């Protein structure tokens, strides 16, 4: 069991997963998003390679209306 904090909310997962699997799990597949892991950007090209670890802090963002 691992715990990730996603946009400030803790979530538990049965086993370690990679970023692509996380995106599918969160129903964000195909969305224009950017992801930061523990303060570092995860380039889209590395989504399948990066395996998330217990305690990781993730920020997943989108563009919204703003001035």
């Amino acid at each position, binding site marked *: 069991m691992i715990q990730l904090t996603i946009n400030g909310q803790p979530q538990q997962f049965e086993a370690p997963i990679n970023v692509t699997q996380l995106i599918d799990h969160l129903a964000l597949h195909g969305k*224009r998003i950017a992801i930061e892991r523990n303060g570092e950007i995860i380039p889209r090209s590395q989504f399948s390679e990066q395996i998330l670890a217990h305690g990781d802090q993730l920020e997943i963002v989108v563009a919204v209306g703003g001035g």
Partner: protein
Amino acid sequence: MDNLIIAGKTYTSRLLVGTGKYKDFGETRVAIEASGAEIITVAIRRTNIGQNSGEPNLLDVLPPSQYTLLPNTAGCYTVEDAVRTLRLARELLDGHSLVKLEVLGDPKTLYPNMVETIKAAEILIKENFQVMVYTSDDPIIAKQLEEMGCVAVMPLASLIGSGMGILNPWNLQIIIDNAKIPVMVDAGVGTASDATIAMELGCDGVLMNTAIAAARNPVLMASAMRKAVESGREAYLAGRMAKKLYSASPSSPTEGVIASSDTATTKTAPGKSSDCPH
């Protein structure tokens, strides 16, 4: 052609608009089309997790292929948050490096914290971002931001979202006179005449959001702002006449006026004379 050039890229519109506070994406799209803006600001926020997965995305309505998106750091009060937000924005927008930096100092006035803004600008410029920077209207700070390598300085006209117009045209004038990079008024424009005044002062552009989005008819106001910015720019380029205090100068010939001027001078306004006791 009289174009706006920012970081080597040419734009025909000098009106930059925000995409916040609209009723829905439909209104956002139509208002932005009416404004004629080519550069539009967007904010970067956490996505909703596990809710509204079918929700439309702003970038579907305003595609990066059609507009130059200017991600901002609105709501950031620290160097770290501002820098992280723009790194995420660059990843989100496929390496796009033109950004709007603002580091706020106070939630009540949203006044920029210039000490923190300068620190954030230093980091971002080192990381090859092209930084358009929201600043107080301090001419010395504005010059420092230029010398650091910011690609545009954007002093406030008045507080963000206040619609109070241009409160210190004299400071803006000093900033404009000193700058070799584009100067945009950002924040405080309330109505079309404010945008015109900014352009008449010699600003290279105007950035606004609430003045359009919070108008009773945002689409019509967007059109008004487009004309106001163009109008002010043309007036600036045309060069206004000199002001002549206490010295009128008729526009029509003084010679050849028909000879009944004596009656005109003795005529009194109706109503005035009857109030006068004889």
